[in-house]
């Protein structure tokens, strides 16, 4: 238990202000939280509240205005091979086959073809895309495309996985089944996961803890610990509905 409490990733007083001709626009305001090793942490916030901006700062794609990000206790700047990402708009390459997409990070790292194929095979099976290795993404459904995105992020074997509203573009049915899939995958391949959503039920189904963000600029409103609810969770149980209601009452409306 002791080692479990050590933060894998720490976000400390992150603020982000965009400056343009029209003036300054603050997207993130003094956000701090910690992600424990092996934890599935959910960031819950209304649409356009600055969630992606915050994630892009953590992943190193964007630079913060102030504050710091610590990984394994060390301050980090820029992208880090140990932090990978599943993107909001799937962002799989239409011109690469499923297998080539999954192997992207491995190819960039200069790994030879045979080794890449072994690894990609494992993760393609993990996300349930066996038999689609040679398909191109335009042939796949939205849910399958995001499975490619998930396999691609897992394939580089990072310590931390960031998922930016990965199911936001999916219909309700597919979204629900993908939530179960991500529970299964994260149980099979234990990783530290930072999962972003604007959907309260999704947050309550998946999160070990939930960091609730305010409307723009994003601030931490409250942090909820849901570890007392074992997974997979019964979404009509009293405890589930209670915590869901509690968070719902505390949530800002999207602008």
């Amino acid at each position, binding site marked *: 238990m002791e080692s479990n409490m050590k933060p894998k990733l720490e976000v400390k007083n992150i603020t982000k202000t965009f400056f343009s001709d029209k003036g300054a626009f603050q997207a993130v305001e003094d956000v701090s939280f910690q992600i424990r090793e092996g934890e599935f942490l959910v960031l819950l916030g209304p649409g356009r509240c600055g969630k992606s901006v915050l994630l892009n700062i953590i992943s190193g*794609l964007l630079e913060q205005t102030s504050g710091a990000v610590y990984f394994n206790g060390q301050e980090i700047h820029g992208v880090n091979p140990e932090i*990978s990402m599943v*993107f909001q708009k799937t*962002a799989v390459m239409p011109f690469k086959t499923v297998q080539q997409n999954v192997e*992207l990070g491995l190819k*960039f790292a200069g790994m030879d073809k045979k080794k890449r194929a072994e690894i990609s095979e494992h993760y393609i099976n993990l996300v349930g895309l066996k038999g689609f290795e040679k398909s191109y993404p335009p*042939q796949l459904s939205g849910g399958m495309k995001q499975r490619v995105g998930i396999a691609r992020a897992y394939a580089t074997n990072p310590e931390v996985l960031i998922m930016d509203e990965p199911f936001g573009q999916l219909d309700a049915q597919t979204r629900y089944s993908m939530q179960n899939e991500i529970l299964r995958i994260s149980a099979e391949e234990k990783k530290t996961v930072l999962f972003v959503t604007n959907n309260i039920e999704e947050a309550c189904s998946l999160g070990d803890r939930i960091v609730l963000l305010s409307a723009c600029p994003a601030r931490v409103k409250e942090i909820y610990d849901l570890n007392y609810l074992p997974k997979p969770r019964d979404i009509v149980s009293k405890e589930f509905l209670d915590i869901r209601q509690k968070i719902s009452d505390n949530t800002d409306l999207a602008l």
Partner: protein
Amino acid sequence: MEKKKNSVMNIVCIILPVIAVLCIAIGWIAFSTANPRLMPGPVEVFQRFIRTFTNPVARVILPGHIWASLRRVLIGLIFAWIIGIGLGVLVGWNKKVRAVLGSVLELLRPIPPIAWIPLVIMWFGIGEFSKVFIVFIGTIFGLIVNTSAGIKLVDKINIDVGKIFGGNQRQILTEIVVPTALPSIFAGIRTSVSSGWTTVVAAEMLGAKAGLGSLVTKGWQGNDMALVLVAVISIAAIGALLSVLLSKLEKVVCPWNQI
């Protein structure tokens, strides 16, 4: 119901082009019987076509003329593709290169390819090099602009993917940015082939020993309208053939685009 409508549409789509071609043929026959001196009929043109083999024009049979034009356009295009696409990628990717070349390109691009002919002939004469160079200079600016526009349009999220998965600048460019822009690059290639083909024919009309354009001029000067028509029909047929070949090639190069 949907299906039935679709199959009716399909039949219409097959029949309409046939009707269009028939209309042209009937119009041609009608016009040529009314004015046989201005417009030779299909039979006469076909006989003239056969005679281009038995009785070579300027000691070259028709396929030789076709090859002369094709070779010029291909050599010019290959250079234009390599240099134009290369420069286009640089202009689209690198802000500094864009700052240097951008305004020059905006100035040169609207010049129609044919407008280069008198200039190039003045610079380099009417030899073989001039004709190849006219194709090159007439198509390269369109290629640069099409390519760089495609590169600039690449969604930022795709570049972010490249960064997250550890790609360096070169890897992101070759593995993500250029393939994403490939459909635009191909659109540029398609335009370059059609404009290159018309340009080379126009250049040949001003003077060449062989080539379809020179055939047009020889027929015109010798008052041999049938020969002019043989050349014009060949120009159209080869142009159409090139465009069919190109769409086949696009299916091979961009297989994901046809799904």
